[in-house]
């Protein structure tokens, strides 16, 4: 007898296996999921833009003969000693504590070899980092862990952190298993306890106070250091305008794909705007104030390739910052640790329990045995190579658009593949001269 045909088992899109697994995990533990990294969901991104390239109306530059400059100067508005970078890619703030000392050293080595800056994080400045970073940006964070005026003065720039893209409006948590004696000592807290990082600064609220705080930082550092203000991608137009009003030399704008050491998954995936959506409003704010290029804009959150760098610059950024990509370059989520990732219940590319301190690659850990797996010199060279590739790719695209400096890239060099990207980037949908929201249509 013929068997009755059956329909294929049908999975629910709404209740996918992934969603159901999270429901089961929540039901078993009673606590939200905490992880590192940035938004994993698909959002409109630089992949949705294309460069038009040169044509009859524009002529390109010869790839191996005609120069395309890449240097960037940050902090020209008020600082006596602006930062000069060879390339438009900086290393974003990541804390010692979240990262091992070897990882911080590797970032410093790689950035220095490539001619760019690296940045401290929550937890203060380490000797590994200062010693191996020719240009070091010192983050001034709400927790003020490890904050002291001596480190402030030996920094090359100061970054007042108001927010970050992974969690605009949120603080952080470094779990006790990563709080070794050294980390605890730098943070003035007991070993082994969970350390909360506050979501807002303890001694100022609002842009008027921030202006006075920046004045104090300048007075303490003799008006030498560029003052950056880092904002999460929440309300980029107003936040940029207010940061500038408060006296920022540089605005660092971090979209929702920007990573964090640890916070709630619900925060990472559901708060903030995609990087692509943040750039044009921020640039508009600078232009409305007549300060575009005088106050520099650094964009971060999901920068992976030279194409991403070039597109961010074309939309009006002066430089970009990388965090997650830099960690991957020095060895994070490397397939060679696959068997160990599987023991942790994950797989290469998906490992994000950075807060647990069991990173097989020895990067997001304070475990001496795991930390020893990362050779800071070799990792530094990998980062330098990667930064060089980003720069070469960016130059390649700039030359193809006929520019002899990467800062000459402009929105008119771009088109968008999707309506969403066209609206966010305010560049025409491919094949049209229109984008949603364009005035006059």
């Amino acid at each position, binding site marked *: 007898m013929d068997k009755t045909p059956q329909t294929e088992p049908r999975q629910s899109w709404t209740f996918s296996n992934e969603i159901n697994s999270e429901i089961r995990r929540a039901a078993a533990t009673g606590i939200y999921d905490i992880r590192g990294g940035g938004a994993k969901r698909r959002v409109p991104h630089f992949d949705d833009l294309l460069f038009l390239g040169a044509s009859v109306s524009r002529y390109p530059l010869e790839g191996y003969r005609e120069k395309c400059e890449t240097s960037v100067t940050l902090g020209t508005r008020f600082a006596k000693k602006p930062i000069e970078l060879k390339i438009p890619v900086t290393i974003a703030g990541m804390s010692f504590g979240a990262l091992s000392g070897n990882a911080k050293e590797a970032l410093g080595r790689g950035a220095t070899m490539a001619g760019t800056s690296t940045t401290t994080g929550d937890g203060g400045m380490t000797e590994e980092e200062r010693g191996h970073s020719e240009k070091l940006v010192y983050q001034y964070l709400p927790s003020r862990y490890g904050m002291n005026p001596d480190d402030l003065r030996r920094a090359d720039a100061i970054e007042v952190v108001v927010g970050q893209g992974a969690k605009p409006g949120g603080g952080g948590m470094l779990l006790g298993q990563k709080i070794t004696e050294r980390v605890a000592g730098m943070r003035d*807290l007991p070993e082994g*306890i969970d350390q909360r990082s*506050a979501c807002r600064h*303890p*001694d*100022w609220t609002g842009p008027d106070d921030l202006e006075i*705080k920046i004045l*104090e930082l300048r*007075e*303490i550092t003799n008006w030498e250091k560029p003052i950056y203000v880092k904002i999460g991608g929440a309300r980029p137009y107003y936040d940029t305008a207010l940061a500038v009003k408060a006296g920022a030399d540089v605005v660092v704008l971090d979209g929702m794909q920007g990573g964090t050491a640890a916070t709630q998954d619900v925060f990472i995936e559901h708060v903030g705007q995609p990087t692509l959506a943040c750039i044009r409003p921020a640039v508009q704010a600078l232009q409305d104030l007549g300060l575009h290029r005088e106050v520099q804009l650094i964009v971060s959150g999901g920068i992976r390739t030279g194409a991403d760098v070039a597109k961010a610059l074309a939309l009006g950024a002066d430089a970009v910052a990388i965090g997650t990509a830099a960690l991957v370059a020095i060895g994070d989520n490397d397939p060679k640790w696959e068997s160990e990732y599987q023991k942790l219940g994950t797989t290469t590319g998906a490992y994000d329990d950075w807060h647990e301190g069991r990173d097989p690659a020895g990067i997001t850990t304070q475990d001496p045995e795991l930390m020893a797996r990362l050779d800071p010199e070799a990792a530094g060279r990998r980062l330098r190579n990667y930064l060089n590739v980003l720069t070469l790719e960016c130059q390649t695209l700039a030359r193809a658009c006929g520019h002899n400096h990467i800062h000459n890239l402009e929105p008119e060099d771009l088109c968008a593949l999707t309506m969403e990207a066209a609206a966010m980037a305010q560049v025409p949908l491919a094949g049209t001269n229109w984008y949603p929201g364009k005035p006059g249509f």
Partner: protein
Amino acid sequence: MTTTLDMTTTELREVNTTLQAAAKSQANEAYVITNPRGSHAMACGLDGPLTVTIKGSTGYYCAGMNKKAAITVEGSAGPGVAENMMSGIVTIEGDASQYAGATGHGGLLNIKGNASSRCGISMKGIDIVVHGSIGHMSAFMAQKGNLVVLGDAGDALGDSLYEARLFVRGNVKSLGADCVEKEMRPEHFELLKDLLEKAGADARPDEFKRYGSARQLYHFNIDNADAY
């Protein structure tokens, strides 16, 4: 030798440059600042055994990040006085506004009047003595150091406290999450006696109650969710 800087004719930048250079020389010099007119960021970032007397009230962040210097405000101080102080002594003859001694790592902040809300927020080793009363949310997330209050404390004292010690002579309107009254042991009487003497406070250690962390929130536990 005492040098006087008059802020009706001397800009803030020049005042701070002069004081910072004098502090850097490690000379025991004395400076008097007249007509501060509520200026912000006065005498901040000093790093040396300087004596500074400010004749009048100051704005935000007076004596910010101080190291070694002895700074006296003969008036009241705006928000964030002696924020992130590392060492030295800062004395406020009048009242202090919000966030006095915020994130301070060391030294003594001696407030002769009252202090507003969030006094000693996130303090990391500083000693603060307030001769009057303090406002709400004081010693929020305070990590290390001692806060001594001769008067009363407002709502939510010591909320989410770590290892800082709080001593209050008067009434506490309410305690914050994880802050509890603790026994005064002999070492606390000794500590308090020393701090009261240093601050020139007219009070006896046995008049105070001690408050500290119950340490129940040191590790995130879902059973404590109601406390967050």
